[in-house]
Structure formats: structure tokens, C-alpha cells
């Protein structure tokens, strides 16, 4: 009886241990009695890849992830891939870690680097191998849905911020301000045009004065040239007395001409001085008008003052009319 009990208890215990051990190994994906090819992958991040996840080649499951560990120094993660059977991978073979589906399961897919050349693989020396001849591959992890969602969220926030700024830039308040600025610019342009017209008129007057003076100078010079020709003729004829007499006359005439020229020059100088002072005065007036200084400036810029002045004129008109109509009301003459 006791032996039977021992046999029974031992059998059940052994059965439990066998089921636990082999069940665990089987659920990990281990195949009993078959060879395995060990490959290591180095990469920066493994995402949600875990031990036991599938390893695929051209979409076909060919093994499982055996181990995941951070490299010494924390610069990379080393993944141990256990491939079923004997495998000789291509020279440019790399591993791409990606979600297998949208439900949290990941996989390591062995591909060639030329298939996805733009991925930022973790760089390792070419044909790197462990002491036992175990191949080491470069790896790259594709971003999962949550990371893409986070990036999309960031983009959406930026677009929202941009839209808000556009909304502010083209809002009613901004439109009103731009309209006001255009009105001010229009008013400023009209004022400037009036000033330019006034300056143009004055400049035309000055130019006319200069032209007249020039004509007078030309006339004087013509007269002088005639006189010189006559002197030359007299000298040639040898009639000195008459020449002297004539010279005296000519000298007198030249003196008169000189006086005319002097007068004309003074007139021109005065005209130019007057033009300078006129321009300066105009500049000052323009500056004061622009700054709204002075009565005229305030009248131009201050609509309230203009309206008040207008009302004052109206009231003066009314007062004058009343004065004419009722002089006795304002003026009383009395003798004694």
C-alpha cells in the first residue's frame, strides 16, 4: 500500500513538473529536437518587442525572439533571434522591428538593407560576428501607432496655433485698423499733393524771373559786342580823336551797361535768396502742418477744431447780421 502511494504521488509530481517545464518551453515557441540558428541584432530601441515574439522572413515565421538586453553602457539594445533550422543570411541582411498587428504584438523581420535603404539602422562594423560565429545584424524599429499619433497630435496643435494666428491677422479689428491706415494715407497724400502744387507754382515764378534776367544779360552782351566792333573799326580807321571821343562815349555806354548788368545780377541774387527763404519757409510750414502744430495744422488734423472754427464763423455771421439789423442794440451815440 505504501509503495503504491509513493508511486502514485511521485507520478503526479513528475507529471506536474514535466507539464510545467515542457509547456513553458513549448509556449515560448521552442521546437524540440531541431537545430536553431542564433543571430544577434543591435539597435537603439526595441519598442514593445518581447521575448517569444515572432521572427519573420518574407512574411513567413521562421523563429522567435530569444532574449532582449541592454548593451553595456546603454548605447544599444541587443536582441537574440533564434531561427528554426540552418540559415545563411545575406551579407546586407538587417532586422526591422515593427508591430505585427494593431493589437500590441510585435515582430522582428529580417530583410535586406537595399529593400529599405533610408531607414536609420544602428551602425555596426560590416560582417560583425560573435566569437562562436554568431552573426550580428543592424536593426531599426519602425514607429508604432502611439508614436505616430503623438506626432500627429503635435502637428495638429501647430496647425491650430497657426490657424489662430491667421484668424487674428485677418480679424475684424485688424481690418478696421488697415482701413483706418488707408484713410490716413489717403489724407496724407492729398495734403502732400496740395503742398507740391503750391511749391510748383512758386518754382515756376522763380524760373520765369531767372529767364528774364538771362535775357537781359544776353541783350547787354549783344550791345557790348556791337560796341567792341565799332571800337575795332575806329582803331582800324586811325581816326584817334574821333575814336577817343567815341571811346569816351562808349565808356559811358559801357558804364551804363555795367550798371544794368550789376542791377540785373543783384536782382538775380535777390531772387535766388528769396527762393531759398521761400523753400525754407515752405518746409517749416509743411513740417508744422504734418505735426498738426499751429492753427492751420490743428485745423487740418483736428476735425473738432475745424468744426469749432466753422461754428465760430457762423456765429460771427449771425452777429454781424444782428448788428446790421439792430445797430442800437450794440452802438449808442449820445451827446451830453
Amino acid at each position: 500500500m505504501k509503495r503504491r502511494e509513493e508511486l502514485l504521488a511521485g507520478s503526479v509530481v513528475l507529471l506536474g513538473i514535466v507539464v510545467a517545464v515542457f509547456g513553458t518551453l513549448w509556449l515560448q515557441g521552442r521546437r524540440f529536437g531541431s537545430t536553431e540558428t542564433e543571430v544577434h541584432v543591435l539597435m537603439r530601441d526595441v519598442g514593445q518587442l518581447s521575448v517569444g515574439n515572432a521572427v519573420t522572413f518574407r512574411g513567413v515565421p521562421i523563429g522567435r525572439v530569444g532574449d532582449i538586453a541592454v548593451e553595456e553602457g546603454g548605447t544599444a539594445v541587443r536582441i537574440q533571434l533564434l531561427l528554426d533550422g540552418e540559415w545563411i543570411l545575406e551579407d546586407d541582411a538587417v532586422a526591422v522591428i515593427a508591430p505585427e498587428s494593431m493589437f500590441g504584438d510585435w515582430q522582428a523581420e529580417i530583410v535586406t538593407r537595399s529593400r529599405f535603404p533610408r531607414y536609420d539602422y544602428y551602425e555596426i562594423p560590416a560582417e560583425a560576428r560573435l566569437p562562436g560565429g554568431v552573426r550580428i545584424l543592424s536593426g531599426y524599429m519602425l514607429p508604432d501607432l502611439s508614436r505616430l499619433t503623438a506626432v500627429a497630435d503635435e502637428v495638429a496643435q501647430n496647425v491650430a496655433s497657426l490657424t489662430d494666428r491667421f484668424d487674428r491677422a485677418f480679424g475684424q479689428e485688424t481690418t478696421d485698423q488697415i482701413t483706418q491706415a488707408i484713410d490716413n494715407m489717403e489724407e496724407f497724400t492729398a495734403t502732400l499733393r496740395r503742398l507740391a502744387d503750391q511749391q510748383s507754382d512758386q518754382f515756376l515764378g522763380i524760373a520765369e524771373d531767372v529767364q528774364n534776367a538771362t535775357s537781359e544779360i544776353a541783350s547787354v552782351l549783344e550791345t557790348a559786342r556791337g560796341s567792341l566792333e565799332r571800337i575795332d573799326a575806329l582803331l582800324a580807321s586811325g581816326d584817334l580823336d574821333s575814336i577817343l571821343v567815341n571811346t569816351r562815349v562808349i565808356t559811358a555806354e559801357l558804364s551804363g551797361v555795367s550798371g544794368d548788368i550789376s542791377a540785373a545780377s543783384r536782382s538775380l541774387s535777390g531772387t535766388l535768396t528769396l527762393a531759398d527763404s521761400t523753400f525754407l519757409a515752405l518746409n517749416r510750414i509743411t513740417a508744422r502742418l504734418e505735426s498738426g502744430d499751429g492753427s492751420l495744422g490743428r485745423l487740418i488734423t483736428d476735425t473738432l477744431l475745424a468744426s469749432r472754427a466753422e461754428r465760430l464763423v457762423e456765429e460771427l455771421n449771425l452777429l454781424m447780421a444782428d448788428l446790421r439789423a439792430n445797430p442800437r442794440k450794440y452802438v449808442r451815440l449820445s451827446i451830453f
Partner: protein
Amino acid sequence: MPTSVLTPVEYIGRWSINSVRSLGKAGYLTTGALRALRNVEIWGPRLVSQMVSVGVASVPIALFIAVFTGIVLALQASYTLTGAVPMYLVGAMVGKSMILELGPVLTGLALAGRVGASTAAEVGTMRVTEQIDALETLAYDPLAYLVVPRVLAGVFMFPVVIVLASAIGILTGWSASLTLLDMSSAEFVRGLRLFFQPWDVGFAVIKSLSFGLIVTSVGSFYGFHAKGGAGGVGVATTRAVVVSSMLILVLDAFWAVVLL
């Protein structure tokens, strides 16, 4: 002071004193059992028979529960997941649920009824019939003779029974998926392996060990302190089952918080 106010206060005081006294008795029993571990010549010969009684004899009821749990789990997982997620996740749900939760807890509760009750009844009967006093008179350590082999058998055999039950639950869930849900074996196995971690088995074994320790210890405690006649044994048995079941659920939550 009026009696109507004093009575609840007295009740609370009596309950507190009894609780502390029970803790003291439990501590005394625990230390006594630990000391009795030295008496291998007393508990050693009885260990195998207790392993058979606690473990081997419990396998049928544990497997019976596991068979139907696996079937129901697969069907409910399919009912819940159909149209929402791929069906291979039925395998993941059956595997994870059976290994982590339903296998250990349901089997533990079933064994709490069977093993806890039998332990409390046997030891309690020996107590009320003064057999334990006779053992002491014969210079036998009753703790080494009655408690230690039962507790050790529980600690050893509960994990074995629970591993077998979990495996059977997964197998029946697999069978139900193939026959009733039109799933393929490849689909089910893919889901089964998808989220499996070797630590899941370790977690289940640790839980099972603690369940075995609690069920046999509580049964021994209430049996050892049974009073009166057959009625006292009945009360001890009932309390043993209730307290064991409650402690199993408390431990289940405790290990989930601590280990997961």
C-alpha cells in the same frame, strides 16, 4: 451606563480579544510547527500519504473544474471578441487567464473546500476525541504528526495540481475553439504564444504554494482548536473552509500587486 450602549461595546471588546487570542494561537501553532520540522522521523512517514490525500486525490476534481473552465473561457472570449479583434486573441485570453488567474484561484478554492474541510474535520475529530491528548501522553509531538505533513503536502502538491489543471483548461479551451468556434490550431497557438511570458508560470506556482500553505494551515489550526463534540468539529470545518477561501482571494490580490 445603559445596557443598550454597553452591549455593542462589550461585543467589540470580546471580538477584539478573541481576534488577538486567535492570532496568538496561530503564532503558537506556526512556531510549534516550525519547531516540529526537526522531527522528521515523525512527519516523514506520513508525508507521502498526505501528498496522496491532499494532491493526488484532488486531481480529478481539479481537472473537472479546469475542463469546463477552459471551454467556457474560450466560448466567452469568442463571444466578447468576435467582430472586434482577430480571433487568435481567444488563444491569448484562454492561456493568460488559465495560467495567471482561473487555474490557480478556481483550483485553490475547490481544494480549500476539499482539503481544508477534510483537514479541519480529521484534526478536529482527533482533538474532541482526545486522540491528540493521547499522542502527547505517548510523547508524540501532535504538530509534527498531524500538522507538518499536511502543510508540507499542501505546499508540494497544490502547485502540481494547479499546473495540471491549467494545462487541461488550456487544452479544453483549444479543443472548444477548434470544434465550436471554427478556429484553426495555428490561430489558437499563435494567440496562446503571443503574450506568453515564462514568468507567468512562475507567478502561478508562487500563488499555488501560498494557497497550499494557507489551506492546510487554516484547516489544521481550526481542527487543532476545535471544542465540544461533533458540533464543534462542524463549526471548525466550516470556519476553515470560509477563512481559507477568503484568504485565497486576499492572497490572489496580494500577489497580483506584488509580483505583476
